[in-house]
Structures are given as C-alpha cells and as structure tokens.
C-alpha cells in the first residue's frame, strides 16, 4: 500500500458553545476513498466535528486542510463549493416542492433570471435517482414520501453536487433493513469512485459492515483512530464510555398487577383501526412495527394530542374521555414524544423551565412561581438522571440530544405518572446513555408503573418488554408473550402481507 495523501487534515480543532467546550484539540486525517466512522456518546463531539467540516459551525480554534490547502469553511454553501456535503440526521427538505426541485436546491450555478427547464430538471432527477436504484417518482411532492425515501433524495442530492467528502449523520436511523442494504451499496460505490465518506451511527454492526476506519470521541476529546478490523465491539464500547458496560439486557421478572390502561376498538380513520390492548401495572408492553405503521398515532390518541374518532380508553377499569393532553396528564398518563425537537423541548428556554413544564402545581401552588422549589426540583432531576450541563439556567438547546432527552424524561418523572408512554425514547442516543435509559425504564416498571414502549429497535423491544404488540398498516397484528418473542416473530407480524412494502428474505 502506498502512503495516501489525506483529503482532509484537521489540526487542533476546538469548539465551545455558550462557555461549554464540546470539542478539545482534535486532530484527524481523512483519506480519499475511505468510509470513516465517527463514534461516541451523545455530546461526545462527533456531530459537532462533522458540522464544522460542513460549515454549519466555525471552530473556536484549529485549522483544516483540504487536499493540502488550508481552507476556511465559513458556511454550508462554502462547504458545498469545496465539495463537502452533509446529509442531515433528519432530512431537511421543502415538503411542498417536488422531489426533482428538492434535488437541485442548494446547487451552485444557474442564472438568477434563467428559465426553469422542467423537462431537463425531471430528466436529471430521474438519472440521479436511477443511480441509487430506488423507484421514486420525481414529480411528486416530498411530503408524500416516507422518511426513508426522503433520506434517499438527500443522498441523491449529495451525488448531484459531485462532492469529494460526504458526511452522513445517522443516515440509517429511520431506514428498514432492506433500505440500509441499498444505502450501503451506494456508499460502497461512492468509495470506489474515490470519495471520502464520514459515517456517523450508533449501530456497531453497521459500522463494522461498511467502515474502513473508526474514530472514537469521548467528552469532546478524540480518543483513538484505528482500522475497524483492529477493534472488537467491546473495545469500541469501552473507549466510548470509558467504563465497562453493565449487562443491561437482563431484567428480572417484575411484579405485574391489575390492568392500568385498556384500549378497546380505538379507531382513527386513515391512521389506525380497531386497536385493542391492555397494559398492566408494573408491565412493560412493547409496541413494534415498521415506521409509519400507526404506532405513534395510537400514542398520540391515548395522550389526547390527536384523539381517536371512536373506541374506548379505560384507566383502572373506568372509561375516560381525553380531549387534550391536559386531560391525560390529569389521569396520570405521560408521553415522551418521538419528536423531541418539536414536541418536546422549549429550545431557547432554560433547562430548569423545561424540566418543570408539566408540573405547574408543584412549582406554583398558588399561581406564583417558587424559584427555590423549581431550582431544587430541577437540580434533583439533573443529579438523578445524570444530565450533563453547565447550569440549569442555560438554554436547553445548548445540550446534546441525549441530555435533552433525559431532561424531557425528567419532566415526566416529576409528574409521577401511573402510565408512561415512551415513543422511541432512545432514538439517536448512544450506547452508554441507552443503558441508563434501560435501567430507568426497568426501575419505573418495578415501581408499579404501566409502560407502553414504542421502539423500532428490535433488540431494545426484546430486552425490555414483558409482552410485544406489533402493528402493521394501522392494525394490530400480533401480541407476543416474552417467552415466544424473537426478531423473526416481530418482523413477520410487522411486514404487510400485501402492498408496496413487501420485503423479501428475512421476514418471510
């Protein structure tokens, strides 16, 4: 092997947000034609590093050389001009524009007053989507696409701009196994073309399948860069969390009591129909299925965000009416929502305010806020859930995703719910914090709470659930006891028998 000149060499990169140093003195070389994984817990600094390369953030200190030349990456457009593209965790697109239009947005060139050549645009778009080998109609609006398909469009956009460095920030989070395979095929082809790919993921098996080298971050420091084959999974995890992993996947048999939540013939046309299930006290009921199967809609209906059109919800055996979340909270229900950024946090408000948002009676018994009580509750939550922050008065938007999620969980724990609905509680959260979440969920159930856990990660469902319900296309298709549960059983029930989503192989 000849010595390759690195495409990117970053030296001494540091970055602070609002006084908190999130990256310290990071040196990293990226070679042409390699797939390079960035690993680390949430808040370890990997996403920040990627965003610095993509021009989203500017480093506080440090230099970046691209192809041997010192460069200043001042903005995402500047990065694009240099041939660097970032594919976001959640696709950022224009939902009302067509796929073809989305594909050309952000591209350099074209005259300000030039005519849009629709036919050519569509032709180019079809060519790009053809490269990815995914059948997507380029004339339909983005809104109509699944998250996976939107992700594919984002990737096609990166191809269109002919980038030398493509950064994928958790590209597989919302994809099905088959779609992941397609994505990997594309990544391999990009590598053969000599492009460099940064791959950020929490799934080690994916890193192993596709990445040549890995760089591990912890607490803002780069810990190590090594060839993937030189590290075992245990090595990687140990470097990420800096401590041995507890065997969180083993949960004792909790005491299961009376039925706490019961749902009968719940129907919301177009979303879900005739949903029946019970959740008992002390029981964790998993709710599995493919993305878009209607699981989140059921959770939102129970919590009163978008109530069902018909059907009955019973709490402790008594039928209840829930028109809005306030009603649900009054009945002892809590929902940790799937969409943290929009339905969870108040981004510009303090962590303290965020944590106490659902318990106005506790912090203001007679309408006037008691600062001392509020601060104490927030501090206790921060300590109990080990939320990493500078001060409870800093805006929650400055925390990492995992710590934001902990704050949201803290908010609901303060409300002391009897029934806790968790919708993808560990999405985009690294292994170390996930283990903490699993422990907490186990403890909550052991404390007699009824828990409905929605998750797209099969190992998570299998490890935590006493019983697993599966939804497919708005219908409940299985109720699997713990003893009989397996990945195959869940997938078998999750995959629709007819229709466009049919997946071959594993599920059959």
């Amino acid at each position, binding site marked *: 092997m000849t010595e390759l000149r690195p495409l990117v060499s970053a030296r001494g990169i540091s970055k*602070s*947000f*609002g*006084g*908190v*140093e999130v990256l310290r003195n990071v040196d990293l070389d990226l070679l042409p034609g390699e797939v390079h994984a960035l690993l680390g817990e949430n808040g370890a600094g990997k996403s920040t590093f990627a965003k610095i390369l993509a021009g989203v953030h500017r480093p506080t200190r440090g230099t970046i050389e691209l192809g041997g030349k010192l460069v200043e990456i001042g903005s995402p457009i500047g990065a694009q001009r240099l041939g660097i593209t970032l594919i976001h965790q959640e696709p950022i697109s224009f939902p009302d524009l067509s796929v073809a239009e989305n594909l050309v947005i952000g591209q350099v060139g074209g005259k300000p007053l030039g005519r849009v050549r629709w036919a050519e645009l569509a032709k180019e778009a079809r060519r790009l989507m053809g490269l990815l080998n995914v059948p997507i109609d380029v004339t339909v609006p983005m809104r109509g696409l699944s998250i996976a398909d939107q992700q594919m469009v984002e990737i096609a956009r990166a191809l269109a701009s002919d980038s030398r460095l493509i950064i994928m920030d958790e590209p597989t989070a919302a994809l099905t196994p088959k779609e992941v395979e397609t994505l990997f095929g594309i990544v391999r082809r990009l590598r053969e073309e000599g492009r460099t790919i940064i791959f950020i993921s929490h799934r080690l098996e994916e890193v192993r399948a596709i990445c040549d080298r890995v760089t591990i971050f*912890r*607490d*803002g*420091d780069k*810990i*190590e860069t090594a060839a993937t084959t030189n590290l075992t999974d245990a090595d990687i995890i*140990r*470097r990420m*969390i*800096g*401590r*041995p992993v507890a065997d969180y996947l083993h949960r004792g048999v909790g005491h299961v009591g009376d039925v706490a939540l019961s749902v009968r013939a719940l129907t919301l046309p177009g979303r879900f129909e005739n949903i029946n299930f019970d959740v008992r006290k002390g029981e964790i009921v998993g709710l599995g299925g493919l993305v878009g199967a209607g699981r989140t809609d059921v959770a939102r209906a129970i*919590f009163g*965000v978008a109530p069902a059109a018909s059907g009955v919800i019973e709490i402790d055996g008594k039928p209840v009416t829930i028109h*809005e*979340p*306030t009603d*649900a*909270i009054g009945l002892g229900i809590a*929902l940790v*929502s799937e969409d943290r950024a*929009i*339905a*969870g*946090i*108040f*981004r*510009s*408000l303090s962590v303290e*305010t965020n944590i106490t*948002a*659902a318990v*106005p009676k506790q*912090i*203001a018994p007679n*309408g*006037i*806020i008691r600062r001392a009580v509020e601060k104490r509750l927030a501090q206790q939550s921060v300590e109990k859930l080990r939320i*990493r*922050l*500078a*001060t409870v*008065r*800093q*805006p929650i*938007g400055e925390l990492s995703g995992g710590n934001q999620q902990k704050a949201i969980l803290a*908010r609901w724990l303060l409300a002391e719910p009897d029934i806790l609905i968790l919708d993808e509680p560990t999405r985009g959260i690294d292994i170390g914090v996930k283990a903490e979440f699993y422990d907490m969920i186990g403890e909550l159930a052991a404390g007699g709470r009824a828990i409905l856990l929605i998750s797209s990660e099969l190992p998570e469902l299998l490890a935590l659930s006493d019983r697993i319900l599966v939804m497919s296309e708005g219908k409940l298709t299985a109720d699997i006891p713990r003893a009989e549960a397996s990945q195959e059983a869940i997938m078998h029930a999750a995959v629709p028998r007819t229709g466009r989503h049919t997946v071959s192989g594993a599920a059959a």
Partner: protein
Amino acid sequence: MNSIDKNPVAAAPSTVVVREAAAPRPRWQVLLIRPETVTLILLVVATIVASRLSPFFADLGFILESSTYYIEFAIVALVLTLVIISGEIDLSPAAQMALSACLFGTAFKAGLPIPVAMGVSLLAGLVMGAFNGFLVTVLRLPSIIVTIGTLILYRGLAQVLAGDKSIGGLPSWFVGIDYRMVGIVPVPVLVFVAASIALGLFLGITIYGRQIYQIGTSEIAAIHAGIRVRRIKMGLFIASGITSSIAGLMVASRLGSVRYDLASGAELTMVLIVMLGGTYIFGGRGSILGTFLAAWLLVIIATGMTVANIAINAQLTVMGLLLIVSIIMTNAIYARSQR
C-alpha cells in the same frame, strides 16, 4: 468497578470523567446584551437630544402632560406585549377602542347613567376580544388575518353606530381625566405605571406568565406538556378587548366626546411601542419593562420633535426608521443568544 486492563489508550482515563461545569456567560454580559438595554440607551439619548433642541423640554411636568396623548395606546401595548410573546398578534385594539367608546356614547345618549354605559362598553370589549379569541383558538385561523378582519369590522360597526358626528355632552365630572393630577402626575400616567407593574409581575413571577413564554417558544411542545394553550390565548384576547375598552373610555374622557374615528391608525403605534421594547415578533421573548421604556421613548421623541418644530410628516419618517432599527437590533441580539 474493575479497571480496564491493558488499555492501549494511555491518554484516556479509565474512569468516567464528569466534566467540570463551564462558567456560564458573565452576568454583566447577560444584562447588557438585552433588547431592553437598547431601549433604555435610546431613551437616554433621545432625552439628551430633545433637551438640546429646546430649552422648554427639560421640564418633567411638561413631558408628563404631553404623554397623555400616547398613554392610552401604551396601556393597550402592555397587553399586546403578552399577546405577541404568546406567538399571536392583535391588530384590532384601536378599532375596539372606537367601537366600545361609541357604544358608551350611544348608551349615554339613550339615557343610561354613566356607570351603566361604562359597563356596556367594558362588556363590548369582552365580547370583541372573545370573538377574536374564538376565531383564533377554536377555528384555528392565523391571528394576523383574523384581527385585520375584525379591525375593519369593529371600526365599521362604530361608524354604523355613531355616524359621522361626534357624540358629546358628557357630564363634566367624567370629562378631563388627563387634567386630574396626583402631584404633577396625570391620572392616565398613573394608570399606565400601575398596569405596567401589575402586568410585569404577572408575566415575570406567575405560572401563567411562564406558560405564555412557553407557548410562544413552541406551541406544539406546550400542548404536549399539558399547558392549556387555547384557554390562555383566549384569555389574552379577552384581556386585550377589555383593556382596549378601558383605553377607549379614557380617550372619551380626555376628548369630552366620541367619534367613530377615535384612535384611528393607533394599532400601528401600539405595535411600534411593543417592537421598540424589544419583544420578538415571532413570540417567546420580550418583557413588560421593554414596553414600558419604549412607551416613554415614543413620548420623548414625539414631544421633542414637536417642540423642535419638526413637521408631522418628518416625525412619521423618524418613527418608521426607529421601528426598523429596533427590529434589526432585537433580531441580532436574539440570533446571538440562539447559538
């Protein structure tokens, strides 16, 4: 806890490092870089400039007296501040002032005693505010369009009710609220100061104030946190209506008569005051202190220019420029703290 044996990464400590919490931004910086501070500085500068322009200006009594023309709008602007922080807007208060004042005048002319006529006016404010609130919270229409609609509707109703003539003949005890003084302070100014303190406390230390900020920051998150978003917004629109009718009665008292074009165009003055005070037009940020200071800034500038014999057209230009500058400053400050 067993330590990691043969750790090849010598630099990495083998135990969890809980990072020392970094120091938050220094307090003086937090205080200095606030929109209210900008408003305060502008206020000081405007006062100095105005005193240079005219020697009459440096008389506190004169300023207080001149302020009565704006103070009714400033009172409404206080409530408007809450509405804007909650992420909505109300452009109809000036029209509500006119309609409730005309109802008051008509009721008085029809022979009702003044207190009853005032009750009619307040009730009208409540109904008008509730109608706005209904359209926004129940029918879920955007408040900017709704209140442009009702601004025209309420003004139109006032014209239908009162015609082109002014309704006068109000008893002398009712007329001239701006000439009643406590010391050298006219009563309307006292009302404004008292309302500022009350609403400042409401916004600053009560749970409802907190929830107004939360709704304005993210309405969806607020709904998910169990905050009664629709109820609070309804309350704000009703408060805006009732406050407008009080302001309308104060104008009626000051002028001694009412007409359908009372407070015509004043919705823009109100929005100007709120914006000058550094409240963020997209909601979630702002303060009563800012609005309070901005009201005085407006009084100083308007009075200063009048004293310095600057034509009314030029005054409008200055106001417009001020509004734009203040929005640029506010946005820059919030964008800075957003990171």
